[in-house]
């Protein structure tokens, strides 16, 4: 079936087999491999993307559900292609050593962006609670929590030059 949706700010029209999770559509058809698959029970959160602005697990979202929607993946977060400029949340993860092996990172960053969008000034406890659906095996979460706290501050600052 043909679906039309906005992917990372650009309209896309794709012919998909309905029984296709969005993870497969992104990774196999559209070559956007930044969205990762870490489990098969919708528990790990590595595949988190923004679906109409909400953080959702793309392994548990069917491609046909994208029709008419707006999807943002990790590849679309940092803005214009060809630029190395990071989103403030990505920058905060870099600055606070909020990643090690990098596998959970896209899902963590997308969850964090959605969290801060809903709650611009979260407490540490709110951040920890907000990350309950994202597993990380490397960091012990400490620096991820610090990153999200810092990212929240940065996201609320007016961007320089804009």
């Amino acid at each position, binding site marked *: 079936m043909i679906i039309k949706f906005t992917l990372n700010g650009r309209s896309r029209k794709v012919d998909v087999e309905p029984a296709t999770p969005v993870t497969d559509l992104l990774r196999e058809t559209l070559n956007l491999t930044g969205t990762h698959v870490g489990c098969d029970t919708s528990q790990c959160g590595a595949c988190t993307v923004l679906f109409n602005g909400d953080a959702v697990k793309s392994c548990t979202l069917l491609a046909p559900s994208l029709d008419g929607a707006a999807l943002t993946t990790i590849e679309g977060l940092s803005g214009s292609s060809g630029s190395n400029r990071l989103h403030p949340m990505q920058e905060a993860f*870099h600055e606070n050593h909020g990643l090690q092996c990098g596998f959970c990172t896209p899902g963590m960053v997308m969850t964090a962006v959605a969290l801060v969008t809903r709650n611009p000034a979260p407490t540490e406890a709110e951040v920890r609670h907000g990350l309950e659906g994202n597993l990380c095996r490397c960091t012990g979460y400490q620096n991820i929590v610090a990153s999200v706290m810092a990212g929240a501050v940065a996201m609320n600052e007016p961007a320089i030059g804009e």
Partner: protein
Amino acid sequence: MSNIIGIGKAPRRKEDFRFLTGRGNYVADVKRPDMVFGVFVRSPHAHAVIRGIDKTEALALPGVQAILTGEDVAADGLGSLPCGWGIHGADGLPMKEPPFPMLAQGKVRFVGDMIAFVVADTLREARAAAECLAVDYEVLPPVVGVLEAVRSDAPLLFDDVPNNLCCDWELGDKAAVTAAFRKAAHVARLSLVNNRLIGNPMEPRAAIAEYNRGRDHYTLWTTSQFPHVVRFLMAALVLKLPEQKVRVVAPDVGGGFGVKQFHYGEEAVITWAAKKVERPIKWVADRSEGFVSDRHGRDHVTEAELALDENGKFLAFKVTTLANMGGYLSTFGPNIPTNLYGPLLSGVYTTPAIYCNVKVVFTNTVPVDAYRGAGRPEATFVLERIVDVAAAEMKIDRVELRRRNMIARDAYPYQTPVLVEYDSGDPLGCLEGALTAADAAGFSARKAASERAGKFRGLGFSTYVEACGLAPSRFAGRLGARGGLYESATVRVHPTGQVTVLIGTHNHGQGHETTFAQIVSDKLGVPFDGVDIVFGDTDRVQFGMGTYGSRSLVVGGAALSKASDKVIVKGKKIAAHLLEAGEHDIQFEAGVFSVAGTDRSKSFAEIAGAAYVPHNYPLEVLEPGLEEQAYYDPINFTYPGGCHIAEIEIDPETGTVTLEKYTAVDDVGTVINPMIVAGQLHGGIVQGVGQALFENAVYDEVSGQLLSGSFMDYCMPRADHLPNMTVETHSTLCTHTPMGVKGCGEVGTIGSPAAVINAVVDALSHLGIHHVDMPATPNRIWRIIQNAAMQQAAE
């Protein structure tokens, strides 16, 4: 040069950008032209005879390219998956080493054992064919626990392995220990279980294999911590291929923790199958598949006894352990509960006599091998638990008892009674630092506040030492290692003076691209941004043993340091020529070669340029180019150590244990990048906390099924389970590594289980509790509290 970023600084990581922007390159991201997909058919039974496999129906399904089974493996005369260690029992005989076929032959020995490999044009077609494959099993009774496995009436996994006993291993002076126990004023005893764990790196295992008939050449992309070792084991011993005809690539790897430091059957099968179908084949494990095929960790049942004199001085320590190996010997399997366990039982104490007996046992479970810490957390847990038991029984303060028995800083180097000689350390310094950082003095007030709220609060201490920086090859060889354990590095200076490092360790989260660049920046005075680190490809990197055992910085970093030194030596020769001075008059500092006592100098980049444009160059005595390689084999293990303090609160109504505070003061030697070291400690500590409070791999005793086979049932630590931790370093320098480094990858996991459980037991001590097995789940703690209350009521 202004952007030299050297040792002790905390530059942000060079590798972050690709991961933060979704541009990492993990095996599952790799696509090859005309690629087909593979699925492994795995045994649903823990123990069964394979009566027959009928491929007919499955082969007829659309898209199916091949179905390979154990019979095909045998027909091609392929080898068994090798074990890298051959240990010997107390009787001097070698361990029992039954074959580990890459696809089961005649029998399956655990749920998840591989039966067949199905290759089809699409993943969906491969799955359909895998489901359709007809396997006729004769189901046998399984045995999953070590206590049951060694009973005389237990089912046997292998006909020629009586009592399922792989090896009855011992270490230490049994007679001295027996004599010391006779003199003891007090003997503390403890029985415990070290729970089975599943490492679960967030990236599931995956592999892609491709065969090029024109070159008779294979390429394997695999989620491995040690691609060169995979190539050697697979090519030389399993598939019997010329090693130079095989390239193994381990690109970005999403966490390892030991789980990816073995040569897995899947790697050999897919490489072998790629030639048969002559198309690239991709296999990516589901998480559910990972649970029943990734090698598991820990799983010990232990009895320990500690003999003390009337002042609490440790006289002797005796440990008897049954260690679960699972259904086959994995790459490092038998080494973990023996050589990486017994020698650590001295801890940071002066115990003069130690004896350890380990029975290594086969069961119908996933093979058990190294998981972060590997043997050393188990040893630390036994020792630090029994010290608390002894302290409680002798009514000596737990901290004071530890102080009385610690090795003094000036007593190093210290030869333990169990093989190893510690080169340096300061256990007391770590302990005192941790007491301060944890505000141990304020604990009683916090405990009183908890009590007012109806909660139990506990404080737990654990000291530890680990042997890491694996490993001195000759020493390891005496213990049974069948390979070398050195590391190699090449420093390739480009004509512009920028540097590419080719190193045999593998970066899968440890920050090597940053840390190693700092070392080169520091040594050669080149800009941090001008150094790139290459790893994980046997066609690019000369050789290497990979990353595990907290060895990358210790052994790989040493090789890198040595190779950098060689570059400087050659650079001085070139500089001497260009500056018309004697070689011995050339000084090198911060990227500048200069003639001592003059203002004549050449920059590092100028020297590099001269090496590659050798017009004015001593070609008669010196080769052009500037590239040096070094192999480094350590002369001893390194011995990081430290003190961890956990503070927990128990809600007696639900039995829930909450980790309230965690403090670690660790001696990891020289710190290259403190930000990265802290990150390693955080992650390591939480894996140990996971073992203590949450994680448990549980098998059904009757069916042999893994009951905790998904994240729904295997509890991984999550952000909202944990507090912020305090981690500090209190370093003494390693005396035998070039930079004084000791390693930090595993320390967190080694110190933390005992600290947490000691805190839990402390919180329950008023109920007469002296031990709690891991994980301290709410149900278990509630049950303990209930039983204690009933017992107190009965008394």
